[in-house]
């Protein structure tokens, strides 16, 4: 059985839909993917975002045909490919480990897929693909003679040159330095919109996922926690995992104490927080609500109670880190974990100092209510590498402080 899309010399005219239906993958004694449903429309740039070990690579391997699902079906362009072999699927992968053939030159590597399909101008097309990743000048070298970043670009060229209906990218920019990474992100986007291929981009870098993808799916422990446009996910995370993995969040857990037609109000250790009903996943019982740090403002005098505004406090500033355009404060309030606040350094805004007494205020419509049951860990695990440098800086600072206090 041969898939028509892979027939000789035939390039995919456009990207194809990908549909995963009830996919599970169990390894002996370990469930890597658990009943996953996923639809990626043709021509979209889709990012699968999740921490290391959550099953991203396994998902890609299932789609590429390198692994067989324990249950479920895989459809590409409407055709069931669950039982077809990898080489019969109109899919190419940029492997996390590059997997360049060490015994071939760079050019031979890139031309490999074209030659297997009997494409006539394999060599010319391979050179073009190498020009795209700015590596045509090393086409006669061996992979071992290139740097990690260069190898990664070759791996990209080797996959893209085949113009597959679906391109799978497994953390393809992991080994690049920041400048090259940005450049490649733009190039990837260009290639994708130029050829209209469907890209499935796997990453643990939330910034990369948000800047590049039309749709982001956040994956955790073999399941998709939430899926949507980057902004949508950021503004209205559904679970504590998404709220903390995708950017930072301040979370509060408490009982719902009052509820009206538009909103619910939660009492979390004395702080009363109101969330609009459409933004709250759960409307009664013990719930967790949250707000993004940049939505919160600080005042040094107790603000007047007003409708449409959440006020929490007083608390004390326990840490200040100035980073030019903004300042990040850490506020400690009795009964809560440390709360982060980002304030823009507009000319008139007043700096607060360590130890100052402050109140936190934010507009009710910036609150969100999570779907998690009961109390969530306040410091939900964050993967080390996905954090932007500013938060790494603060974290280091926090660690240092903790050490100083211990010592």
């Amino acid at each position, binding site marked *: 059985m041969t898939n028509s899309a*892979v027939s000789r010399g035939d390039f995919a005219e456009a990207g194809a839909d990908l549909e995963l239906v009830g996919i599970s993958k169990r390894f002996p004694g370990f469930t890597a993917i658990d009943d996953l449903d996923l639809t990626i429309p043709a021509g979209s740039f889709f990012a699968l975002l999740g921490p290391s070990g959550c099953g991203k690579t396994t998902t890609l391997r299932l789609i*590429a*045909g*390198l692994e067989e699902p324990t249950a479920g079906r895989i459809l590409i362009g409407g055709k069931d490919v669950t039982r077809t*072999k*990898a*080489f019969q699927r109109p*899919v*190419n*992968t940029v*492997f996390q*480990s590059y*997997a*360049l*053939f*060490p*015994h071939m030159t760079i050019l031979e590597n890139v031309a*490999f*897929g074209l030659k*297997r*399909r009997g494409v006539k101008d394999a060599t010319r097309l391979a050179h073009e693909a190498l020009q795209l990743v700015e590596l045509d000048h090393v086409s006669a070298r*061996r992979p*071992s003679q290139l740097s990690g970043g260069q190898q990664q670009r070759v791996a990209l060229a*080797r996959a893209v040159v*085949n113009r597959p209906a679906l391109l799978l990218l497994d953390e393809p920019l992991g080994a690049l330095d920041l400048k090259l990474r940005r450049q490649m992100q733009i190039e990837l986007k260009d290639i994708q919109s130029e050829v209209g291929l469907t890209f499935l981009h796997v990453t643990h870098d939330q910034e990369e996922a948000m800047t590049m993808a039309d749709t982001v799916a956040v994956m955790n422990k073999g399941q998709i926690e939430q899926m949507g446009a980057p902004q949508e996910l950021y503004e209205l995370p559904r679970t504590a995992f998404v709220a903390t993995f995708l950017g930072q969040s301040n979370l509060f857990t408490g009982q719902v104490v009052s509820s009206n037609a538009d909103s619910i109000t939660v009492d979390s250790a004395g702080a009363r927080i109101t969330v609009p009903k459409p933004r709250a996943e759960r409307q009664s019982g013990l719930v967790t609500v949250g707000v993004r740090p940049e939505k919160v403002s600080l005042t040094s005098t107790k603000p007047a109670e007003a409708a449409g505004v959440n006020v929490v406090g007083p608390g004390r500033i326990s840490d200040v880190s100035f980073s030019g355009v903004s300042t990040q404060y850490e506020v400690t309030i009795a009964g809560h974990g440390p709360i982060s606040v980002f304030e823009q350094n507009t000319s008139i805004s007043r700096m607060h100092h360590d130890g100052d007494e402050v109140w936190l205020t934010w507009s009710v419509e910036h609150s969100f209510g999570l779907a998690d049951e009961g109390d969530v860990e306040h410091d939900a695990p964050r993967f080390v590498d996905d954090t932007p440098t500013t938060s790494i800086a603060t974290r280091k600072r926090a660690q240092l402080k903790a050490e100083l206090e211990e010592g």
Partner: protein
Amino acid sequence: MAFSAFTPTEQKADASIQKRSPVALLLLLPGVIFLVLFFVTPLLSLLLTSLQEPVPGGFFGEYRQALRWENYVFVLETYGTQTLRSFGYAALASLFALLIGFPLAYFIGITLRRFPLLQALCLVLVIAPFFISFLLRTLAWKQIFAIEGPVAGFFSMIGILGPGQSITGTAFSVVFGLTYNFIPFMTLPIYATLERLDLRLVEAGGDLYASPATTFRTVTLPLAAPGVISGTLLTFIPASGDYINASRDFLGSTETAMIGTVIEANFLVLQNYPAAAALSIVLMAVILVLVGIYVKRSGTEDLL
């Protein structure tokens, strides 16, 4: 180790790290002394012997130093057939050993990769014949192939073998014996390369539209080439000089004599030392040329 004796890529990488220091030269000294004592000296002695001439009126087996290069003409004229036969048999044995050894190495190195215990067991089984003397094993085959033996009986029954014909003493039994004895030498180096083969490369082949057969031809085989080259050399070289399998006392007959058998006879029976030495030199020279061509051709990976 001999397993990885021929890995062209590694040699290239090493060449760039050429640092000469007096200490390094000093460390080389024991090796150089060993080489001079145990390789260069016997080689020179052999070369000199090959040019000796009989002492006129002397005893049987008495020779004196000379420059009688006619010895070479003599041996090539007299033993040309045996020389050619040697390389023919050795080539056949290498081919058969490869045909058996490669799948075996593939099975142990790749199929059994997830079962380390089974893998170790199979490796031991490949090496197990070495626990028994080479001579005894070959003699055992002579028994198995003997006229009254089971194999000959079966072959006569199905009519391949006429009455009174035997399997031993034929080209078949000699090539069989050579193949059998050298299978481990073929299998182990190939195993060593396949065991290290990055299976993700094989997956990448499949991802890039190559069928399993094409992936094997374009990815697995080229990456296993260093092992195949080491294995064929480790088989071909000793097999072409072998004097046990082809001997009348074991699996051969006078019709299957190989160069090793002839050298042995000249040294020990005919006491024609110059002829034996000249044959040895010829054997060595031909092997050097053949191996040189082989390594050069496969080194440029156009072999496949």
